[in-house]
């Protein structure tokens, strides 16, 4: 029975006592048909009981909690950079629509957007770590530095983070760039932009005071939607850089067919994204005067 998780609990190369297999299946509920397993999973999930990981031999919730902070650091930094970069480049591109800056920046954005995330990681590792030896190839800290002072530890962390952050930033900033650009192009056809020009404002001030504040609003809502995409990017980045976060954990769960862990991870991913969406909605109602909190 390939892909049977119960099989994975038994050390390799040993004869398996079928009755033990049977009991283990029973213990983990694997003897039930798949739909019933699924139902049991849903019921348990709503009780916030994510199950038990075969591979780590610990409750899924605990395993995830240990690995999650690293992911939040990686995603937090790269998204902050990507949003700022994407929005500002997008704003300029929209303003100079059809000019050289627009063409170059959107082409660049489109290229990084079309890349598989993990492949970009590979290229960066090959160039900067393997060839040039500038950064460590993976992980999150160097073991020998365990007892070094706090600054050395931080520098070490930064060195480990730099390539993963660049990878994740590059693959996600294009989304923000294009949204901001198109939103800006839309806003510029509005009458109030004409009013602003008629008032005698310079083009720069029209952009800064009138166009961007309006173009930002629809862009903010798309941050939330983009997050679903970023989870996938983070997962690939972590795997390529052996970065110990929940993406790496997902990879291990796939490899060892640890379904409880896999489902738990999916649940946490979805939960985080939904919370982020909710937060984005609330932020939106604050920054857009047209939407009032009921």
């Amino acid at each position: 029975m390939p892909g049977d998780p119960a099989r994975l609990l038994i050390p390799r190369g040993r004869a398996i006592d079928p009755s033990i297999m049977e009991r283990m299946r029973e213990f983990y509920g694997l003897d039930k048909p798949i739909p019933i397993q699924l139902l049991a999973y849903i019921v348990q999930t709503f009780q916030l009981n994510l199950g038990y990981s075969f591979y780590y031999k610990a409750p899924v919730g605990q395993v995830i909690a240990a690995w999650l902070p690293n992911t939040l650091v990686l995603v937090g930094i790269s998204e902050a950079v990507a949003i700022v970069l994407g929005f500002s480049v997008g704003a300029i591109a929209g303003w100079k629509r059809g000019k050289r800056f627009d063409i170059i920046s959107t082409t660049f954005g489109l290229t990084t957007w079309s890349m598989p995330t993990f492949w970009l990681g590979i290229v960066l590792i090959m160039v900067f770590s393997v060839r040039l030896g500038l950064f460590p190839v993976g992980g999150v800290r160097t073991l020998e530095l365990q007892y070094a002072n706090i600054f050395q530890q931080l520098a070490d962390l930064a060195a480990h983070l730099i390539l993963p952050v660049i990878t994740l930033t590059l693959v996600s900033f294009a989304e923000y760039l294009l949204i901001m650009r198109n939103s800006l192009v839309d806003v510029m056809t509005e009458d109030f932009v004409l009013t602003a020009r008629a008032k005698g404002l310079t083009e720069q001030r029209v952009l800064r005071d009138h166009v961007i504040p309006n173009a930002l609003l629809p862009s903010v809502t798309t941050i939330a939607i983009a997050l679903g995409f970023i989870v996938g990017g983070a997962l690939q980045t972590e795997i390529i850089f052996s970065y110990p976060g929940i993406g790496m954990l997902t990879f291990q769960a796939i490899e060892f067919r640890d379904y409880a862990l896999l489902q738990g991870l999916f649940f946490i991913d979805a939960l985080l994204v939904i919370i982020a969406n909710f937060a984005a909605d609330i932020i939106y109602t604050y920054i857009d005067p047209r939407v009032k909190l009921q």
Partner: protein
Amino acid sequence: MTALLEVDGLKTYFRADGEYVKAVDDVSFRVNKGESVGLAGESGCGKTTVALSLMRLLPSNASIQGGRILYEGQDIVSMSDRRLRKTRWKEISIVFQGAMNALNPVKRVVDQIAEPMILHGDVSKPAARKAAERLVELVGIDKTRAKEYPHEFSGGMRQRVMIAMALACDPRLVILDEPTTALDVMTKTQIQQLVKNIQKELDLSTILITHDLSVIAETCEKVAIMYAGKLAEYGDVVSVFKAPLHPYTEGLIKAFPNIRGSRELPASIPGTPPNLLHPPAGCRFAPRCPIAGKECEALPPDKTLETGRFVSCWKR
């Protein structure tokens, strides 16, 4: 009377697929100090393009191809961008149609009114806000509402805000582009009265752009009628309405139903306006004109009568 604004042979063309659409083609008229001029015509006649040309606010595919726009003797067409920005709003301001989109939806009304004051004058922000609140009251809105956003106002109120905004820098000339078009008749009247009062009080010159001749009849002193990018007729309101010279003007006036007249259908003008990509070589109204003759195949002469009236027609 001295002229505040003189438009002389204005040509504004749009570029479309390598060809020129002659949206405004050789239009001349003048606005004297303290005078209200109405610019009328149907959709596509070029009246809004004239308005945008006066402040050089044209979209990127349009450009002024000829003529002069003299404001106090200074030619706006050839003015440097810096000079132009100083002229905008301080000398000439504009009230756009459809006030919803003409106001920035995410800025408070009071700040939008104060913005040009701070830009053009040496005013502090609080002082500008104070002045903006006074303007809000002047146009008949409670000043406590000045802190609100445009979407919290009704259509008529937003148009009042636009008018307050246009007055922010004490301009000499205000262009009103279809200011009452989407409004109900009572609100329309309220706004018209407001504009009339303010104009008298501040000795403003105004250019009112509208398709609705009755609005011009009730609020303007002079009227210019445009047809297919050309000026058809110009003169004082009473004589143009009472004795129109151009057959188009005559048709347009007759096309308006009048509740003071007898109960009958208004008259229509047969046909449709020409395509401005390839307009007729002669008089552009000739294909629809009831009195057109052989000579109308050539460009009609510009006739200025000693009464100050202007008409572009062979037959008059």
